[in-house]
């Protein structure tokens, strides 16, 4: 559970997030690390309980590529929205979808599977912010809170900036080949997520860990070695890096925790 941060803590977190975002955009990096950074910071900055990022798979559906927690239940709740939910609506309309009370009858009527599932998991409000690229929406940032009341300004404005940063992070360059680059980036990000899921399975089995801890281990190792998570996951899944090397970092905490 997150509490709304104090003004000083929030300002510090904002400055830190801005600096980290700019760092990733200047250095050689890939979209996956940026997207994970954004969902983590969303939780800290906006005082929400959970954040998830879904992107278009360009085959007519959406897939979750990053979440503030890798608990299976939370991932399922995000992925459920590929079929129905505020995230899907935001994706189709290109407009934010702000839900103050998920428990209301109107919400259950609107999203008969998603709404009760979210409430059952303890979430009472949702804000879904589209990731817009000119006229096209390429995904959406999902923010769940355990308190009623969706985001309002200035938090809403900040959330929109974070979603915008995610869009820029995926596209990375302004170019006439924008559509082609977008496709290349989206498909690569999606396949990278599959590699990360495989790596989670490897670490979970090798270290006898729950899957979400396996992810944390992967992330901590990557940050400690200043490597891309995708690269570490690829190294694990192609047997050029052994699970025990990554698991040795289980006890350490990265500075951003």
């Amino acid at each position, binding site marked *: 559970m997150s509490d709304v941060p104090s003004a000083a803590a929030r300002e510090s977190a904002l400055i830190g997030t801005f600096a980290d975002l700019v760092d990733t955009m200047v250095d050689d990096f890939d979209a996956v690390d940026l997207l994970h950074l954004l969902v983590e910071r969303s939780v800290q900055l906006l005082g929400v309980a959970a954040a998830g990022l879904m992107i278009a*798979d*360009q*085959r*007519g*559906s959406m*897939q*979750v*590529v990053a979440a503030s927690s890798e608990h*299976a239940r939370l*991932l*399922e709740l995000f*992925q459920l929205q*590929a079929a129905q939910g505020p995230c899907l609506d935001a994706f189709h309309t290109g407009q934010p979808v702000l839900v103050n009370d998920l428990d209301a009858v109107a919400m259950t009527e609107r999203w008969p599977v998603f709404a009760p599932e979210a409430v059952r998991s303890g979430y009472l409000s949702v804000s879904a912010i589209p990731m817009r690229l000119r006229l096209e929406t390429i995904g959406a940032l999902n923010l769940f809170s355990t308190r009623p009341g969706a985001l309002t300004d200035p938090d809403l404005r900040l959330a929109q900036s974070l979603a915008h940063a995610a869009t820029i992070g995926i596209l990375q360059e302004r170019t*006439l*080949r924008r*559509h*082609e680059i977008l*496709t*290349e980036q989206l*498909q*690569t990000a*999606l*396949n990278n*997520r*599959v*590699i990360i*899921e*495989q*790596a*989670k*399975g*490897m*670490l*979970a*089995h*090798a270290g006898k860990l729950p*899957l979400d801890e396996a992810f944390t281990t992967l992330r901590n190792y990557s940050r400690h070695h200043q490597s891309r998570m995708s690269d570490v*996951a*690829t190294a694990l*899944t*192609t*047997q050029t890096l052994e*699970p025990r090397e990554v698991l040795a970092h289980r006890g350490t905490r990265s500075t951003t925790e």
Partner: protein
Amino acid sequence: MAAEIRGRHPGMTFVGRWWVRMLHGAPIRSVAALQTALAVRLSDVAAPGGPFQVLCDACQSLLAVDGASVTISNATGTRETLCASNQTIALLEQLEYTLGEGPAHQAYTTGRPVLISDLDADGTPEWPTLASSLASSLAGTSIAAIFAFPLQYGSARAGTLMLYRATAGRLSAEHLANALQIVDLATGLLIGLPDGMDGASRDGPPNSYISLAPARGRVHQATGMLMAEFTIPADQALSRLRGHAFATGRLIDDVAADLVASRLRPSDLGGLGG
């Protein structure tokens, strides 16, 4: 086509002509129809025109491209083109093989799609020799746009699907969606993850390898568990998963769920008897 069949088979009934037309490959009009055609081919391996040829030929009408090819590759640089829908793209594949560079090569080695909507304008920094060879080797035909997709499941990469157009222009959103679904079908032929896993209708579009739907996500994780247990790559791990599911008469996603929930141990899937 119809007149031709009537000419060759006078007196055949309407239904009979329909069957002959199906067997001789009428134009495939949707990705779902392609999926069905592939399933038919797989169940009768002796039928003329293997599944890859069907897939390549279907690309022309489904994606509004002028040619398509599927090539399998491995890490040591061995390549084999499984199908090419015409001479032009067959020649392009041969050029890639000879020069050791090109859009399919780039897609395979990077694991990223290579989308060149306009060969002249976009520039080809990764394969300059091939680009200049294209002009001289293919006088009379032109390749103005090339789209190459890796066929992969996570870190397991099997090869590429390559498309070309004689006129410049990017893939529309609809054609891109079809192309990606065909990429999924081709990947399925090579790596063999069965479709219809997430409770999706078998009449629907093929399930994507990049799906993170809960059941499919567990397959990815279970694959990873087997990779760690046996120190094998993703495609072999998937083979074991599939073999065990088949041997026990269960769905892959159920076996995967059991592995992830520790109701089944990866070591239980050891050996050919799995």
